[in-house]
């Protein structure tokens, strides 16, 4: 385990230090006093484990390729932007455009998330991105979503677990919400349903993993507490750009 003190270090230097440490064969890195440094964990492969004390900057874990990042604090905007694989665990809140165009791996946020979380998440063959949110979500959750799943646990039992315009432009994947979402809160493309046996099994598995990774006391939920938001059509623009 190598510890790097990020106090006053510019993001370019900090990321160089991380890469140099990895080049020596180190696989476990702890970053302390992080305050806004961008691009931490960008593109890192499996087997790397980074723990962050503080507030990492924008585009944390962007293009990440299998590494594991755990943050003891809040995170800013653009976390897991176009992430391919790996896991991000955040003991705090997240900012906007969380999991932007994420293509695989798992992101667990203990607290609330900002606007446009899960925007344009997508899945293909074995690549299946998962976002689990412990708190509540801002507007445009799952905007243009094309694949993967978002689970909104609403652990604080907020009567309004999310904002408006949820799933606007959604054409793939699913959002599972614990609590009530009404028709005025979702985009025109979104339908409501109950969770199937298979989906409930998936959600239950993720819940156990989420509580375990975040070291939270386990909770049991009933299937009826959840509702499913899904796209009513698939490939709605399939005929639009047929060259």
């Amino acid at each position, binding site marked *: 385990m190598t510890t790097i003190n990020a106090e006053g270090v*510019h*993001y370019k230097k900090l990321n160089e230090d991380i890469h140099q440490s990895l080049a020596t064969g180190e696989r476990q890195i702890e970053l302390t006093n992080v*305050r*806004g*440094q*961008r691009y931490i964990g960008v593109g890192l492969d499996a087997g790397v484990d980074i723990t962050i004390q*503080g*507030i990492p*900057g*924008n585009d944390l874990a962007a293009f990440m390729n299998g590494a594991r990042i755990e943050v003891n604090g*809040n995170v*800013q*905007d653009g976390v897991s932007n176009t992430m391919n694989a790996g896991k991000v665990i955040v003991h705090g*809140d997240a*900012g*906007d455009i969380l999991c932007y165009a994420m293509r695989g791996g798992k992101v667990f946020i203990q607290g*609330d998330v*900002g*606007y*446009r979380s899960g925007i344009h998440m997508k899945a293909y063959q074995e690549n299946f991105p998962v976002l689990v949110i412990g708190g*509540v979500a*801002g*507007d*445009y959750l799952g905007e243009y979503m094309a694949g993967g799943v978002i689970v909104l646990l609403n652990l604080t039992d*907020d009567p*309004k*677990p*999310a*904002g*408006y315009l949820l799933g606007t432009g959604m054409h793939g994947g699913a959002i599972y919400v614990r609590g009530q979402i009404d028709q*005025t809160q979702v985009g025109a493309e979104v339908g409501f349903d109950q969770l199937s046996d298979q989906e409930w099994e998936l959600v239950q598995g993720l819940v156990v993993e989420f509580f375990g990774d975040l070291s939270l006391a386990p909770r049991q939920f009933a299937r009826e507490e959840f509702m499913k938001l899904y796209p009513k059509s698939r490939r709605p623009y399939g005929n639009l750009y047929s060259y």
Partner: protein
Amino acid sequence: MRLLHRKQFPTSKDISGCAISGMMSEIGAPMSGEAIIRSIANMHDRSNGLGGGFAAYGIYPEMRDRYALHVMYDAIDDKQETERLISRWCTVYGDETIPTRPSALVRHPPILHRYFVNIKPEVMERFCDETEDDAIVDLVMTINNESKGGFVFSSGKNMGVFKGVGFPEDIGEFYRLDEYQAYIWTSHGRFPTNTTGWWGGAHPFSLLDWSVVHNGEISSYGINKRYLDNFGYKCALHTDTEVIAYLFDLLVRKHRLPFEAACLAMAPPFWPQLERLPETRRELARTLRIVYGGALLNGPFSVLVGHSGGMVGFNDRTKLRPMVGARKGDMVYMASEEGAIREVCNDPEVVWHAAGGVPIMAHLKEPEKVIGAEATARLKAHSCKLPAGAWQESPRAGRAAASVQ
């Protein structure tokens, strides 16, 4: 555009957006500019060296009843011409070069001078039932539009704007902001997108004691500019943000709307959202949307507005730019990134991401002690609460409101 205010290009480019940061002591406790410089410097990579600036409230206590005009000049001739105009309108109680610290990182500064003035009684007679504030607005518009190479970039009482072309931390050093004591500081690092980086185009934009720093762009600029033109506000600074400063002056000072109503007029709910509001609130929002259509700000923005009584942070309705709020004791912080807040306050009691179209407001707790009785009465009127009803019923909005109000 003035000769000396020519474009300057950075040596490297890292695509980003502007940075804003503000901090306020709600009990009016003075703070040096050192902390706000550190805060905005944390977001160095959001700007590109083509503009940085600060607004500071409470910095001229000995001159608190005079308007402090900060003026930039291209050349000494421009200074003489503009000073003739200032002397015709104003009694000048003091003037001096704005103190600066020469820096290799701040190139081609204009001549920077400040004047502490009141409008002459005989000039006030021309203004019928208008106030001295109106006369100052008129003077600023006259200088900025008619003077060849002079720009007034700050014109409030007991406050001042300091700005220029450079990275904000370098501009802060250049203006020696560590030597000033203010109870509100706002700051900006610029990444110009639509207009050139020049000294007058740096943020904050300011008129009377309003100052505005802005991340984003106002795509309704043309409509807002024409609307403001009806009321004598002339946009002369080649940058969209200017309209926000003038709109606050028009809506709050002139039309006496509460801050909350002004924000509701500038960033109103979309029509379908408006229909879902409680009735009293709905009627208010509808009326504001109709009456103040020309004041609606479109496009992505996060904005910090400073005034002598407090600080207002607000976003566009769909939250296309970042804004984080935090509080610790009597201190309120608002910034583009949480890292910038943690840089100066590592253990805030509460931190939250703002919701779209929902203002965050911080006010002086005992304004009488800081801004006097008359300004306090105005502040209280502007701070009044609108008819009940959540802004957009968003869960985050509720949490934010609970932690500020």
